[in-house]
């Protein structure tokens, strides 16, 4: 009764809770409840599993859960919001690693009686899980600055990857035809998939990390789903597919935000950095960017009715979120309408900028995404670009020779005046010079973003 009815019903219930939880994430108000509902779903699934009569001893299980819960809760509590992408990358890796281990464990349990379909599912689970594990660790290390963030490439990289992949296919084929041991192929696949995860992420530059994290997120779900095929467990299949679908949607949004295809991100990279650095060192004397001190801008602010703030990752690096929030409050007290324009790739992962602004107590209904805010720049008196560069480069609209051509950008140049807060004239993350800085309605405010905004705030308070 318990084994054949209650456990499956509890699993079904947990799947329903997961779907309801994700549904509640459709609005910031109901989202905390959604997260809680999903957590309950997980609790039910774990409880149902503990009732399984295959389980003979509980010591290992509970000690494992306690160790994992301690590490997980400390990490979740300590992490800074700027470091969330690293943490999510690492968690993705653990998910993939868990799938690889479970599939391998199940393989050793049923090695002598294994069916071909299950064997293939084990291989797939190991393959996706292994890539997710090492790929995520590399993504984590790049984001954390442990290894160089820039793309590391060598000749024949794609060929090597293809050959390694082929080796697994050949191994699987030979094993199915009883030419080699199943277990030899399993060990081979574990090693190759771990190497492929490393080789796959190491050539991808820091700017493309939002795509990589989203993709690895999807992989961690797909690894769980394939493990579900191995264990003949529908709960894993359902939950894993939900996560897989979510990751694919986010990957797609990130790629669109950068106007690139997933294949381009994974296998070719930007590949134009050398050329760009040369062209930006040419000095054209006719092009001089206007530069003001924050104090000189007060007059312009005094006549403004509508201001749009465009935050980029540079703002987060300067830890300027809090003063930006103060700036908003001062402006609003003067009757100015303030909105924020968030580019899809403004942060280091999908939605990252929104979390950083929420942390600084900025209301979520003032954050607008690119499609909603772009028509409004024409009516804006001022656009303030803080630590963003490529996402406001007008070359993306018209300059076919620019590597950014075709990328959706925020149309800040259409507003009356554009203030650009920047450390120096250095080109941005992708190393591309920005036409915007030389426009007649653009004014540069050089210096540390936090300091510049603070000076602005104190000037405006006095005015």
């Amino acid at each position, binding site marked *: 009764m318990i084994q054949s009815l209650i456990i499956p019903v509890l699993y079904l219930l947990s799947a329903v809770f997961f779907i309801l939880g994700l549904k509640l994430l459709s609005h910031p108000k109901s989202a905390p409840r959604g997260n809680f509902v*999903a957590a309950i779903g997980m609790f039910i699934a774990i409880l149902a599993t503990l009732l*399984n009569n295959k389980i003979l001893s509980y010591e*290992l299980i509970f000690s494992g859960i306690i160790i994992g819960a301690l590490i997980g*809760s400390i990490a979740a509590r300590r992490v800074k919001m700027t470091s969330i992408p690293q943490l999510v990358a690492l968690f993705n890796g653990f998910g993939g690693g*868990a799938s690889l*281990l479970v599939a391998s464990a199940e393989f050793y349990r049923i090695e002598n009686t294994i069916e071909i*379909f299950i064997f293939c599912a084990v291989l797939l689970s190991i393959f996706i899980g292994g890539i997710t594990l090492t790929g995520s660790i590399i993504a984590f290390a790049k984001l954390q600055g442990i290894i160089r963030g820039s793309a590391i490439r060598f000749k024949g990289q794609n060929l090597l990857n293809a050959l390694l992949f082929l080796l697994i296919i050949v191994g699987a084929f030979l094993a199915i035809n009883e030419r080699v041991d199943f277990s030899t192929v399993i060990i081979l696949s574990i090693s190759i998939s771990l190497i492929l995860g490393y080789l796959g992420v190491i050539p991808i530059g820091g700017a493309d990390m939002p795509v990589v994290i989203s993709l690895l997120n999807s992989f961690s779900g797909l690894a*769980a789903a394939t493990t579900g095929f191995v264990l003949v467990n529908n709960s894993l299949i359902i939950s894993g597919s939900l996560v897989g679908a979510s990751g694919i949607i986010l990957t797609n949004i990130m790629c669109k935000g950068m106007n690139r295809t997933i294949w381009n991100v994974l296998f070719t990279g930007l590949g134009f950095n050398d050329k760009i650095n040369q062209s930006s060192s040419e000095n054209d004397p006719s092009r001089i960017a206007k530069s003001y001190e924050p104090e000189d801008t007060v007059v312009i602010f005094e006549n403004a009715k509508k201001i749009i703030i465009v935050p980029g990752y540079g703002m987060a690096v300067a830890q300027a979120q809090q003063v930006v929030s103060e700036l908003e409050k001062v402006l609003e007290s003067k009757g100015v309408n303030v909105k924020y324009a968030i580019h899809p790739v403004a942060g280091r992962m999908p939605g990252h900028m929104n*979390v950083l602004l929420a942390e600084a107590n900025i209301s979520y209904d003032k954050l607008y995404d690119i499609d909603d805010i772009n028509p409004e720049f024409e009516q804006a008196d001022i656009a303030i670009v803080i630590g963003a560069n490529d996402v406001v480069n007008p070359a993306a609209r018209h300059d076919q020779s620019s590597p950014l051509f075709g990328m959706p950008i925020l149309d800040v140049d259409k507003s009356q005046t554009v203030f650009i807060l920047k450390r120096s004239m250095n080109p941005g993350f992708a190393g591309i010079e920005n036409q915007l800085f030389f426009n007649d309605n653009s004014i540069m405010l050089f210096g540390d973003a936090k300091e510049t905004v603070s000076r602005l705030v104190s000037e405006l308070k006095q005015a």
Partner: protein
Amino acid sequence: MSSDILFQLYIFILAIFVGFEVITKVPPTLHTPLMSGSNAISGITIIGAIIASGSRKIFIETFFGDVDLTSILGFIAIIFATINVVGGFLVTNRMLRMFKK
């Protein structure tokens, strides 16, 4: 057996459709919590890990003597998956509570 596999494939495909429907409705502002939350859900592998580490012992001869491989792999998998589950839900909760109007 083959009808078993087919049934699982049905579930897999239908769940992906449900996932697409539900997740396209999540607004961009919540994409980071969506990712960390769905990450916690992918920690569902924990149930496979629990069964592996708690079930019948399988000893494998190694250089160090007989080792119960299934339990050991399952045990490490439990730690990994629990970090994923507990850390994922907690950090998502921490983020979501910051979103205020």
